[in-house]
């Protein structure tokens, strides 16, 4: 089953400590186990542009669709056996400690 891990930046989370950032180890682990599909960082919401089409007109808005203190800072797509495995991988991500990780199951189109 595929899961998208949304890496969330939370200003109220404990302060980021560079020495405790094990992201390289984490990435190497999911690569080695063959469960990593894709993943990357995202530029902050200040670099976002929201696109809305209404009555045929395209409206562009500077910034994210919703102003929140927490925002998505990155993502990883993983393919694992079940939710328990996805949750363990999410818990091992450094941003689970310095932010949050939201685990969303992929909903495939049946075909």
């Amino acid at each position: 089953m595929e899961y998208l891990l949304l890496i969330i930046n939370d200003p109220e989370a404990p302060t980021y400590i560079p020495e405790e950032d094990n992201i390289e180890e984490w990435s190497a682990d999911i690569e080695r186990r063959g469960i990593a599909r894709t993943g990357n960082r995202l530029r902050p919401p200040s670099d976002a542009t929201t696109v809305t089409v209404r009555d045929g007109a395209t409206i562009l808005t500077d910034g994210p669709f919703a102003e929140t203190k927490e925002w998505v800072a990155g993502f990883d797509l993983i393919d694992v056996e079940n939710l328990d495995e996805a949750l363990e991988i999410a818990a091992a991500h450094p941003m689970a400690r310095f932010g949050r990780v939201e685990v969303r199951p992929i909903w495939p189109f049946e075909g």
Partner: protein
Amino acid sequence: MPAPRDAATEASAALAEVVASERLRIVATLIRHTGDWDLAEDSFHDAVTRALTTWPERGIPDNPGAWLTTVARNAATDAIRRVTTERRATERHARELEPPEEEAPTMQIDDDRLRLIFTCCHPALAMESRVALTLRTVLGLTVAETAGVFLVSEQTMQKRLVRARAKIRAAGIPYRVPPLRLLPERTAGVLAVLYLLFSEGYSSGSGDDIVRPALADEAIRLTRLVAQLMPQQPEVLALLALQLFQHSRTPARLDAEGELVLLAEQDRTLWDAAAIAEAVRVLAEAETALREVGAAPGPYLLQAQIAAEHATAPTAEATRFDRIASLYARLSKISPSPVIDLNRAIAVALSDGPDAGIALLDTLDLDAPLAEYHLLHATRADLWRRRGEDAEALPHYRRALALAPTAAERRFLQRRIDEIEERAARA
């Protein structure tokens, strides 16, 4: 040849018995085979309905449990076939053809009933969903009965159950007993649900009925099953002992008028001596199991030890409150909670006098999280009353009365206030 009416009576008695003892096992197995919770429930219901007509005519089968299992499984297979011929092969179909690969059993635990219990209590589900699923699927309560426990409408409960089952399927919550590395944490999660179920029966948080013994009985039955399926687990045994100790007081907790009777004022001859004896035995087993694994006592063990002190004291006055206070101090270290601190202060007051209790209450940071908790105010009131200072006690009683959630507790607090006012009027 028995008369037809006798056959029907006999058949329905046999059916009731096998449903009580085998329902959980059969439904749990059907869920594993089909991966579909609703289908499992429906197929089991079909099998029971068929037994009601077949058994009186053809006699009760030699192995009624096996009969129900086979009929329910056939009903499930038929239903899957109907769906798959109508539509393209579904996930359900795939699962039927290829039963999920069995994980290597962790410890000696490999039982469909446990799979079902662990899945219902999965931490990815909201606590109220876990309790609702456990009541409905594990204990077999109807949707209406489950709704009654939560004091919500049947429709609301139905929605909650549908959502919880949908999440199990869509989010990929595995139907299994967790592997060893996850087991301690997940077992704690199951025990939390069992304890909540019991507490809801023992002292319901709201409404007019202060106790619902039937629900407490069901919770004990389930804890007993978990203890049997996961032998030698200290915390599981400890929880069973704790529930038995608390439940033993049920006959003495309400007086003839349905009013709450405090522990100290209960008629101890009404306590269920057999339940206490069993609890003492189970607690000793838990302590032995703990020594064997060489672990520190967990929260349920300490609570069971506290309950044991109360249950085995010959009189309220002879209770070893000093030991209870020190058990609460240890409990507070491993699972800090203002309610535990409050209970510790009560034990200190009963062991060293109300002044010591009031002094401890004043040092604890109780007010912020507990400001709205009626028992904090009731405790302060009671300690002042014990010192003979009615005037100090009265405002705390009034505050407790305003916050008390159940009618029986409100009546109890009102009685205390009336007593103080009568004394004031006489003075």
